């Protein structure tokens, strides 16, 4: 920790929050809010004079509320930076009548009540997401009495009670009578491996070993303590872990396979009793303890949403950030130039966090060392002959990559290629086919639709899937061997925003019974909010289908993330059921009315075009 504070290459911004991240791999623009701590970071030398005179007493969060701090305080003794902070919610304020005592005694005058938040802009090539985890809150699991009995504590509270830097300076006591407990129980998997709505289904990875460690600490500090660990399974799978487990058992710690159903407190002694079924010995026993430690699991950070949105990340069903590939790209985020480290990705211990962090740093260095990055040639191009300058594309581009254009003066728009990210929304929204989305051109996608519907169209479902989420969801379904009917045919686009109305109508006109448009969840679009236009377009299509007497349900819209393999498989099963219900008459009706509708529109267009000079198309050549 100290090294970070001292390193000349590290710009340490504490008490700071990310407000915005824009840009792309190699060139991210970051806005950071450095919140006012009301103490000059450069000047404060942690002399502690201010703390002595502060009259306010507040609960000390670092000590899990077991002791108090002042309104101006050091977060904890080894804090980096070693600087005081003033909590403006607790402080009485700088009005001399109210208080202001700390400022009076500060010799270096580093307390500034008028300090304002500072906005810092950064420009970076890569981002490492190491946002960590939160600890499971056992208040919702009240059969263990955490909210009712003082002598039921969590494993995090245990850490503070046994720490030499803790509120008791390492003298391990129980809260009610401040005596050292002789009989201590640890209850494992609190909030983990739970099938009930309370808690989480996954294993939190670290709690077994943490309890084993805690038991050894107790045995070391207080030999003869009776420690009983209640568990489902002991998972001691890492290097040196089994050794620690055996040492704990040899030290006399009892391990019982079985969890208590409920904990009761003796109102006089404040001791805790519980009935536990030992599933190894096949016996039910009544236990009494002086103190119970709930070995709480870990959960994704409660404030993950912001970073998820700013970096367009996905989350797995357990809520942790999803990696690019579970085996082959475990530290790359799906977003280019973003890497994952530590518990943001999954629960892990210190060693695994450090390992993954070094891996993430190495992956980032590959990018930084290269100094340049090849960008896929998937950008939009204006066909100036077709463009009327109507500026619809300017309005829909999430990256403001299209500029200019004037309908009255007939000036075509321009695409700023470096800013274009290739979602293709502009091409889908253009009424004049004046935007060519490279590698996802109209003809390319139309040819795919033709190939699917060319034979036995009635047996197939045409499924548009976006590259980042839904196509990945389909991949995950396969990777997880989730089985579903064979009827679906996938057409990949970079974004669901690329799915032009005419693609959908073309599929129906060719006899497709069901069409699916699928993309990232609403807030997770990899092109900021391009899928907003997908929704609007599908809405319009539903209206049109209704008008033409085509059942709107034949066009489905689903948001399926790359982590939702199960949802993809289920959707495919549902679509197959829908497909079976579409009658041949329905299909034929749609084919004929859509053909008529299209021909009418084309005739109208042709009439208009006859008045103008003919335009050139870009020919496709076979040879590269």
């Amino acid at each position: 920790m100290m090294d970070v504070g001292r390193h000349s290459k590290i710009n340490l911004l504490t008490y700071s929050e990310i407000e915005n991240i824009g840009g792309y791999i190699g060139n991210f623009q970051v806005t950071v809010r450095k919140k006012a701590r009301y103490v000059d970071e450069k000047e404060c030398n942690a002399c502690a004079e201010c703390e002595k005179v502060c009259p306010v007493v507040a609960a000390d969060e670092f000590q899990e509320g077991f002791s108090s701090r002042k309104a101006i305080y050091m977060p904890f003794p080894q804090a980096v930076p070693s600087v005081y902070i003033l909590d403006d919610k607790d402080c009485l304020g700088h009005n001399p009548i109210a208080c202001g005592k700390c400022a009076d005694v500060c010799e270096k005058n580093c307390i500034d009540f008028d300090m304002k938040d500072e906005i810092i802009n950064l420009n970076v090539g890569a981002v490492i997401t190491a946002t960590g985890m939160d600890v499971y809150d056992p208040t919702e699991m009240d059969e263990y009495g955490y909210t009712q009995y003082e002598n039921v504590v969590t494993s995090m509270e245990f850490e503070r009670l046994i720490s030499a830097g803790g509120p008791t300076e390492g003298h391990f006591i129980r809260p009610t009578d401040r005596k050292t407990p002789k009989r201590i129980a640890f209850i494992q998997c609190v909030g983990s491996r739970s099938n009930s709505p309370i808690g989480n289904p996954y294993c939190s990875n670290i709690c077994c070993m943490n309890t084993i460690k805690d038991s050894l600490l107790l045995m070391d500090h207080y030999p003869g303590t009776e420690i009983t660990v209640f568990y489902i399974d002991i998972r001691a799978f890492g290097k040196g872990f089994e050794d620690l487990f055996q040492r704990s058992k040899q030290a006399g710690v009892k391990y019982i396979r079985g969890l208590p159903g409920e904990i009761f407190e003796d109102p006089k002694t404040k001791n805790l009793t519980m009935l536990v079924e030992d599933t190894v010995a096949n016996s039910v026993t009544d236990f009494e303890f002086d103190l119970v430690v709930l070995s709480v699991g870990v959960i994704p950070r409660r404030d993950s949403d912001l970073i998820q949105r700013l970096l367009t990340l996905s989350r797995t069903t357990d809520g942790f950030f999803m990696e690019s590939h579970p085996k082959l790209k475990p530290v790359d985020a799906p977003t280019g130039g973003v890497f994952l480290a530590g518990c943001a990705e999954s629960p892990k211990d210190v060693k695994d966090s450090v390992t993954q962090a070094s891996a993430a740093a190495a992956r980032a260095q590959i990018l930084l060392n290269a100094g340049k990055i090849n960008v896929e040639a998937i950008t939009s191009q204006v066909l100036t002959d077709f463009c009327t300058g109507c500026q619809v594309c300017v309005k829909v581009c999430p990256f403001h990559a299209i500029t200019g254009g004037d309908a009255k003066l007939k000036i075509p728009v321009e695409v700023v290629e470096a800013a274009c990210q290739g979602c293709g929304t502009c091409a889908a929204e253009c009424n004049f086919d004046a935007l060519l989305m490279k590698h996802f051109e109209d003809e390319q996608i139309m040819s795919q639709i033709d190939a699917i519907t060319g034979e036995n169209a009635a047996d197939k479902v045409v499924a548009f899937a976006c590259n980042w989420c839904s196509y990945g969801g389909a991949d995950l379904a396969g990777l997880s061997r989730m089985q579903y009917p064979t009827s679906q045919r996938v057409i990949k686009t970079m974004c669901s925003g690329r799915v032009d109305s005419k693609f959908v109508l073309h599929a129906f006109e060719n006899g497709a019974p069901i069409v699916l448009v699928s993309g990232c969840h609403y807030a997770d679009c990899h092109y900021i909010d391009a899928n907003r236009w997908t929704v609007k377009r599908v809405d319009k299509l539903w209206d049109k289908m209704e008008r033409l007497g085509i059942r709107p349900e034949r066009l489905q819209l689903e948001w399926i993330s790359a982590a939702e393999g199960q949802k993809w498989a289920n959707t495919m099963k549902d679509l197959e059921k829908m497909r079976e219900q579409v009658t041949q008459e329905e299909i034929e009706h749609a084919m004929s009315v859509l053909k008529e509708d299209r021909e009418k529109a084309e005739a109208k267009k042709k009439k208009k075009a006859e008045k103008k000079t003919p335009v050139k198309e870009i020919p496709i050549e076979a040879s590269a």
Partner: protein
Amino acid sequence: MKNKMRIGVFVCECGSNIAGSLDCEAVRDYAAGLPDVVCSVVNKYTCAEPGQQEIQKYIKEYDLNRVVVASCSPRMHEPTFRNCVAEAGLNPYLMDMANIREHCSWAHLDNWDGATEKAKDIVKVSVARTRYLRPQEETQLPVIKEVLVVGGGVAGIQASLDLADAGYQVNLVEKEASIGGLMAALDKTYPTMDCSI
């Protein structure tokens, strides 16, 4: 179209990952009959060195100007096969992948005929698409040699130190007033039983 399309189709068995659930030979024979397909072959592992060499050999031998690789997801191996065809002188954007593994063989493990028919169709769609592909040139963008690390727990600290020691400017942003994260609140840590800070 000026010259004639010459499309090569490469069907991957992926060991038994694909060949175990569908008839790769039948897919190959079907592809051979599609318009402008001049060669169609099966490989045990197309992504492996011999598989890639075969693609390159066929590009030269048959003067291929479009390539379809029927194997896994492009999210997995598109860069591999783009590089492979580029080495043989073909623009990488003239290669298309037909996903017959994640979207087919793995999703239909016990439906040999259904999966085979679907795989044929997927290859047909890909062949149709390749006919309309154009060569593309990738652009190069500079990378700013600076990093943002979000979070100052043990992982953020380690990543920051590694990158800073490698000489890059690191911006470490931490929400709390001190770095250290959850780790700082732990007394001792396993397996070494020493202090956490």
